[in-house]
């Protein structure tokens, strides 16, 4: 598995990127006043109000990001924290498993 794993991983990541990039180049009909690529969570909120126009949310968030820029910042922060931790972990593991790697290794490139 490990022989092809890097190539496979790159292919899989490329496929995931494509799956997200393609919709941007497709033509969509943004009907019903939906903004382009609006979030499904917000659309569900709108659907609730359509089904039950009398429904009033009975609780408000304690704090809301003051703008969509700040919201994006916090989402980016969330992703960075996660990705940073994973990167750190794999880096540590790789460093430690290196001697073993060359022992079991595919083609020992040394000598």
């Amino acid at each position, binding site marked *: 598995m490990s022989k092809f794993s890097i190539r496979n*991983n790159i292919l899989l990541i490329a496929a995931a990127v494509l799956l997200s990039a393609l919709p941007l180049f497709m033509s969509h009909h943004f009907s019903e006043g939906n903004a382009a*690529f*609006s979030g499904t969570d917000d659309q569900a909120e709108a659907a609730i109000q359509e*089904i039950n126009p009398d429904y009033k949310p009975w609780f408000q968030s304690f704090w809301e990001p003051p703008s969509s820029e700040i919201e994006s910042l916090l989402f980016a922060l969330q992703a960075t924290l*996660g990705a940073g931790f994973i990167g750190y972990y794999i880096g540590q593991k790789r460093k430690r498993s290196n001697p073993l790697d060359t022992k079991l290794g595919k083609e020992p490139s040394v000598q």
Partner: protein
Amino acid sequence: MHIMEGFLPATHAAAWTAASAPFVVHGVRSIQKTVKENPEAKMLLGVSGAFSFVLSALKLPSVTGSSSHPTGAGLGAILFRPTVMSALGTIVLLFQALLLAHGGITTLGANVFSMAVVGPFVAYGIYRLGQRLNIPTTVSVFLAAALADLSTYVTTSVQLALAFPDPVGGFMASFVKFSTIFAVTQIPLAISEGFITVVIFNTLAKYSGHELSLLNVFHKKEVKA
């Protein structure tokens, strides 16, 4: 899949909180036990939580012209137990509810149930079934993660349809409406989540194979041997 703050009637909010609580409690105990028996797994717990942190922060465009996000709940469920992910997923959802006003405290129970209970159990079930049927591990991981993602959004649609049945068509009409918003948009994202989970799983299998076997992740090999 985040039901916004205050957008579930109080009785529903309470019921979903009650439904989720035992899974989260079990998950916390399970984490304590795992860390005690297997201290090396501590970092992998962090990785599982971190993975969900990353994926649930990414709002991706979909073919429907809407954006939604994956959940990242499949990985931790495969590596540990589904309830472990219930506990970790609760942390992710709390972070988003408090800092991002995404989801909420009143809807936390419902959101935990869809993302951190149903999703992980689907992932775990499919992965274990795949191992039993001797399906290649990579394929099992892909299916587990993708279907966990999708099942989370189907669950959200059910939750909303129960709370807001259509005045004419009732539960089913509402369910169709909400699942059109959520589930259809989610299909390509679920596939992406499957791919990315395979990537991280392959990487962990390569560098942390020892820990993964201690956690009995590779059931298949054990059955064979």
